[in-house]
């Protein structure tokens, strides 16, 4: 017993150091499931507010380009307005459309902070729980897929973008329908990879990659990027497909958070099927 106490006294600093390291690694490990404890991330109020100030300053620098993009998008949407169309045949106007049900609802948000130079990059956006955001909602913008909501606080949320090693999504080749797993390799923020596409699939440089919409997070058909390079992965039956992303993550300012209103239902039925299978 005395030896043990002597040991503790002699090595107390080292033991303290070890304890702190264990704590750190516990946090790193837990960070994947820290949805509840968003006070520790940049969605917390203090850091979120600091980032908002910063966003207010840097916003002016980018204002011109953002305005151009937004007005172009407005123009496109205005062209789709119902008032642009006339009824060709007055006899068949359906007033109450029960054939369609609303599945996705978007909410616009502004990016107040982002990084592109890390392995684990994140965006912080200025909408949170109050505005109805929840973890695991899809985030897109005009150019295409951005990422998925990770943590939510009252007024801010963090987004896990494509350019984060932890990001995965199911995506497919628009032309052939072959699908695979979209991942980033941690090197260049302009490129990502589509894995697990079988070798027999016909892939060409320039093919468009879109989301598959299988995970109930994003709608199907959100564009991701174009194929910039294809090679056979050695020792496997799969292609190695490099994708040039449509989104320039160094310039993202406005995004839309997409809520899937039928998500619960899809997950429920999928869970039931899995249980039956066992």
């Amino acid at each position, binding site marked *: 017993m005395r030896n043990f106490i002597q040991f503790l006294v002699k090595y107390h*600093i*080292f033991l*303290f*150091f070890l304890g*702190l*390291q264990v*704590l*750190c*690694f*516990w*946090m*790193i*490990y*837990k*960070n994947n499931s*820290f949805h509840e404890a968003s006070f*520790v*991330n*940049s969605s*917390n109020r203090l*850091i979120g507010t*600091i980032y908002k100030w*910063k966003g207010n300053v840097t916003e002016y620098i980018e204002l011109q380009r953002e305005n151009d993009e937004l007005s172009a998008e407005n123009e496109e949407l205005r062209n789709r307005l119902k008032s642009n169309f006339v009824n060709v045949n007055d006899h068949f106007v359906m007033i109450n459309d029960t054939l369609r049900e609303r599945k996705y609802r978007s909410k616009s948000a502004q990016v107040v902070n982002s*990084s*592109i*130079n*890390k*392995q*684990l990059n*994140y965006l912080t956006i200025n909408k949170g729980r109050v505005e109805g955001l929840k973890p695991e909602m899809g985030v897109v913008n005009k150019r295409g897929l951005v990422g998925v909501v*990770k*943590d939510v606080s009252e007024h801010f949320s*963090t987004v896990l973008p494509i350019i984060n*090693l932890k990001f995965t999504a199911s995506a497919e080749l628009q032309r052939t329908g072959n699908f695979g797993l979209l991942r980033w*390799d*941690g*090197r*260049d*923020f302009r490129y990502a990879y589509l894995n697990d596409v079988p070798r027999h699939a016909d892939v060409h440089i320039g093919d468009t990659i879109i989301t598959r919409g299988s995970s109930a997070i994003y709608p199907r058909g959100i564009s991701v990027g174009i194929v910039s390079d294809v090679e056979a992965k050695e020792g496997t039956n799969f292609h190695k497909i490099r994708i040039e992303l449509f989104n320039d993550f*160094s310039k993202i300012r406005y995004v839309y958070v997409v809520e899937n209103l039928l998500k619960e239902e899809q997950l429920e039925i999928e869970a039931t099927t899995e249980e039956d299978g066992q």
Partner: protein
Amino acid sequence: MASEILKNIGRFVFLVLLQGLILNEVNLWQGMAIPYLYILFLLMLPLETPRWLELLIGLVLGLTIDMFTNTLGIHASACVLIAYIRPLYLKGIAPRDGYEYGQRPGIQDFGLTWFIKYAAVLILIHHLWLFFVEVYSFKGFFNTFLRVVLSTIFTLLLTIISQYFIVTKRSSRQI
């Protein structure tokens, strides 16, 4: 003593904001070199800091930076490691007569060569730990190692430059 604490708190806030708002966005060669100047705070802690306190300060500094980058625990781990190693390393590179009370581990008191020897090793260890914990694998070892080396050089340069700013400010110091 009290002014020393205030000065350190001010330095903490300044370096954390500088890191969180500006330096984290610096991005040379597609993210190959990122300066983590904030560890200058740990490098400049007084030589007499109790070791347990230094470890705690490392933890707090790391966690604060982690909040900005959403990497809970990663910077904290690297900072705690530096806070543990620094006193041991300081002992190893002590001048022949040891340190005098009140000396600060900077260029002004110990000269440029000593400071580079002091800062380069600690920055390198910090970056090695940080980058490898961040990718969490030895896959693509060379790529990560290159990022470590380039970032270390970048951080070291900023650290040395910052020393000269501090020196000019301290020339009017009253003893």
